[in-house]
């Protein structure tokens, strides 16, 4: 009786999120026990955000697209392109920080709108379109500027070096000096976006429609949802988030570089999946996704702390991803995911053309 109740009240999205959260807590708990000197510092935890805010933001964008049943593999390249464009713009002598922000958002949004249009309205495979977008962004990036470009504009450097100091959360280092906790602006951007997008996906009509579209786009159409517009919006939003991520990236590193954010799309996909988003769509949680990304990052930190060859990072990440996917399908299967199949038995297949007679 008890199990039935639980089965009914917790949604798949929340269940997978809970699993992700538990695993992250276990992982971080293990890290603290094993390497207390490094992981007990607040700075270590906040550095996960300080240094990886762009990736976390991209994870949010990808989760949104994946909940809608799509995929966007252009985000890493677009982020890289944005950093380079901002760097060139800021170094041009006529640039301003505000202008570069707008530029970043504009580039991201442009990619999102274009890809979203092609995918939603012309019904082309999202994988192909965003692959093309990725190539395009990569090509533009190297065309604009090949070499690393350090931004030296004073106003920007101030922003780059700014960090909020939280004195009451600091740590004492080995020499006995007290070092206060530093939080970078990117962390705030990421936190704000997590909160805003979680609200959007849970309480807005767009968010709920997107879950429906990802769950079953045919049914959604029949239920009166504008499937195309919903899909289109999800890609536009994801593109916009790539722009934000790009700006946060250059705000953290202070340089445009050909290799910026390369491979982030795959990390973001992995983070989303570990965070409980299903590639098949319709299931996911916008708080879970950053947790998934943090899980991956914690593994990397752990391996670094252990002093093992960094190749192991990739291996362990790969294995973990695999375990997660198996776990997810296991959970879904155990919950009687048979309900995800077509609702009617096969012998009642659609009566129109092409249906089977009995």
């Amino acid at each position: 009786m008890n199990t039935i109740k639980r089965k009914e009240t917790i949604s798949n999205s929340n269940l997978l999120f809970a699993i992700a959260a538990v695993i992250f807590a276990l992982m971080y708990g293990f890290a603290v026990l094993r390497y207390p000197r490094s992981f007990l510092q607040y700075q270590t935890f906040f550095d996960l955000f300080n240094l990886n805010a762009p990736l976390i933001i991209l994870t949010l964008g990808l989760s949104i697209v994946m909940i809608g049943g799509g995929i966007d593999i252009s985000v890493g390249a677009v982020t890289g392109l944005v950093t380079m464009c901002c760097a060139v713009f800021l170094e041009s002598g006529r640039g301003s920080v505000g202008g570069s922000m707008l530029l970043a958002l504009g580039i991201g949004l442009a990619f999102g709108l274009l890809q979203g249009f092609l995918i939603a309205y012309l019904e082309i495979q999202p994988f192909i379109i965003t692959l093309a977008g990725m190539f395009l962004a990569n090509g533009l990036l190297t065309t604009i500027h090949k070499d690393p470009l350090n931004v030296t504009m004073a106003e920007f450097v101030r922003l780059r070096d700014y960090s909020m100091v939280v004195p009451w959360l600091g740590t004492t280092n080995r020499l006995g000096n007290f070092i206060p906790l530093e939080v970078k602006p990117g962390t705030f951007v990421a936190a704000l976006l997590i909160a805003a997008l979680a609200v959007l996906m849970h309480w807005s009509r767009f968010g709920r429609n997107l879950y429906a579209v990802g769950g079953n786009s045919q049914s959604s159409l029949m239920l009166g949802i504008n499937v195309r517009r919903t899909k289109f919006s999800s890609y536009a939003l994801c593109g916009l988030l790539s722009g934000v991520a790009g700006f946060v990236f250059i705000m953290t590193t202070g340089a445009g570089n050909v290799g910026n954010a390369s491979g982030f799309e795959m990390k973001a996909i992995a983070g989303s999946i570990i965070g409980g988003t299903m590639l098949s769509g319709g299931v996911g949680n916008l708080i879970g996704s950053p947790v998934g990304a943090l899980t991956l990052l914690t593994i990397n930190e752990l391996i670094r702390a252990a002093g093992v060859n960094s190749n192991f990072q990739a291996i362990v990440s790969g294995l973990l991803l695999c375990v997660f996917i198996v776990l997810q399908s296991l959970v879904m299967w155990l919950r009687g995911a048979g309900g995800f199949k077509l609702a009617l038995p096969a012998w009642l297949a659609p009566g129109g053309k092409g249906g089977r007679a009995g």
Partner: protein
Amino acid sequence: MRRTAIIVYTASGEKQLQTPNVLEMRGICKSFPGVRALHDVSFTLRSGEVHALMGENGAGKSTLIKVMTGVYEKDSGQITVEGKAMHFRSPQDAQAFGVGTVYQEISLCHNLTVAENMFIGRGRYAFVDWKGMREKTARLLDSLGIPARPTQQLSSCSLAVQQMIAIARAIDMDCRILILDEPTSSLDEDEVRKLFSLMRELKSRGVGIVFVTHFLDQVYEISDRITVLRNGEFIGDYDASSLPQLELVSKMMGKALDDVSQIKKREVPALEGGAPVFEAQGLSSAAGVRPFDFAIRKGEVNGFTGLLGSGRSESVRAIYAADKVTGGEIKVHGRKARIGEPIQAMKLGIGYLPEDRKGDGIIAELSVRDNIILALQVMKGFFKPFSRKEAESFADEYIERLNIKTASTSTPIKSLSGGNQQKVILARWLLTHPEYLILDEPTRGIDVGTKVEIQKLVLKLAEEGVSVTFISSEIEEMLRTCSRLIVMKDRAIVGELSGESLTERDVLHVIAGGGE
């Protein structure tokens, strides 16, 4: 509520009460690539009536409904709603105008909660009022007696409950036209009662209801009028009270026109060797066919007949294990056997020509030759391929024997006509020299000449000692070839007919539920 009536004074000055047509469709045509789904179909729906839309599979009912609701764009024709010409471009359009639809394949989202499914796609505001939504849903579920909770995930509800939720959603939209496409297929008797009383209630409020079902008894229980479609064409609309069930069935099935007097069916052969070639007891499958007994003798031709959804295809699929077998015993030549998957059936000498030629039969990109040797190759094993020469000689032999019209043995099968494709699939099975051949709709969609050829071939095979089960939606065809007819209804066998003087009427009688 919205009951309106028009009083018409006829020429003689008499006063007549007429309910207005809430929906009128005239001359609707709709084609898909290669298929003419609807041709010049008309349909009228009055407010406050239940109008049954009847027809066999492929008759175009679902297509007509999808044209009604804006899922498909019609090629030509007019639709008027309450006297105004309307053109629904999308389901949203139709929904906004008061057309509520419950589709055959339940169109809800399994990953959302019951409450969300009730309200999604209907909101006007940018944000969702979860609390209000849950409360309204709870009230609605309560008033309709649906055993579900608003916060429950839809996937955890039974099919019947999902169906009721879809209906509740349509009702809650306060629609003027309610379309129910096979709403009762997953409901039990009690739930059907509940649905019907709900339909009567809506009727009295002036809602026009389109009701599609394959259950004839239900049609007569609830419907006021009946429109019959066949092969995408409009056959007629009738008052339910003036159209006997038998006539309805014959209108739905139509008559075959081909002249095939030269075909002479065989008698049921004597039992040879003490046991039938194939025997099943209590066989059932995951596709929903009820446990049935079945046997076929050496050289016998028999057939399963019945309406769509009666389980005729499912029965033979269970024999061949094309669907997952869930129970029953099988004997081949009197010895117990187990068929868990098609390859085991093949090894026992059973061949199966599937109903869906395009989907399950041909491998479109492969050549005629490769399509012919496929079954034999599977039985031999893929690691022992036939040489080109062997394959070539097999292909040549059967192309000649079955008179297959193809440019060469290497022509891709997709470029052949339907009838010739079917012959290639037949050749595929004949090459394995089966003892028992199951042919599911071998004559569908092919020209009359080839139909006759295939029927003759069936009888010739039987003469050579092959047992054949033959299924066709054209009853006349089956009467000509089968010495024994097994009649199915609602996924169970309801009768068995044999004898020289069998007529179509006898068969229809059993199907229509007249029994013996």
